């Protein structure tokens, strides 16, 4: 079984190997990488590990139910992720491109809604900011997504 939460750079080739096969002619990969907004040097990711793993299992099972011919998997990186490196990778393969794109899109949108994972931005000046996608002010500042 795929290890969903990792503390080292994500191995995209290994994810691809987990979904590709001779019946599946379309594969797509979504990578979310850390942006260097406003002096951000890295993002520290933390998770409610047990619930995150359970939610990922649930969302991948939902994707399997909706697109039975597709294969989808993902990895989310935790700990400090420098600007430019991937915090999440989703790989989806299906017989045709439509299925691959749709299944991949479904999973990233569910991740955003449901995965109990949190970002703390680390800034060049040594300050940190918890990211609140709801747009409310949190200690230290305001950030989108």
């Amino acid at each position, binding site marked *: 079984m795929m290890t969903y939460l990792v503390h080292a750079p994500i191995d995209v080739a290994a994810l691809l190997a987990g979904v590709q096969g001779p019946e599946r002619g379309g594969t797509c990969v979504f990578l*979310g990488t850390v942006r260097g907004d406003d002096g951000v040097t890295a993002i520290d*990711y*933390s*998770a*409610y590990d*047990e*619930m*995150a793993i*359970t*939610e990922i299992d649930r969302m991948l099972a939902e994707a399997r139910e909706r697109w039975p011919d597709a294969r989808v998997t993902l990895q*989310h990186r935790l700990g400090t992720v420098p600007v430019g490196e991937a*915090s*999440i990778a989703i790989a989806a393969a299906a017989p045709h491109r439509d299925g691959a794109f749709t299944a991949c899109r479904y999973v*990233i949108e569910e*991740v*955003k*809604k*449901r*995965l*109990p*994972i*949190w*970002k*703390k931005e680390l800034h060049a000046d040594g300050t940190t900011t*918890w*990211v*609140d*996608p*709801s747009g*409310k002010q*949190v*200690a230290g500042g305001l950030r989108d*997504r």
Partner: protein
Amino acid sequence: MPHVTVRFFALYAELAGRETTRIAVPATATVSDVLAQVRESVPGARALPARPLAAVNLRQVKLDARVKDGDEVALLPPLSGG
């Protein structure tokens, strides 16, 4: 009396000054009741919003969900994975 374990994450763990606490609750308690009790027993938890996201036993629930002995109640800051 039933006991539940309460877990704090990310910003809420910083505000509470801890990651976990264990509290006794009445048999008919809801997540809201747990939250009220946590605010009493963990001073830093008073800084949590009035209606935080919550999960019981790894599943998101509404604040009126019932809890039972041995449950794990998690208080979750706004999710920002991905």
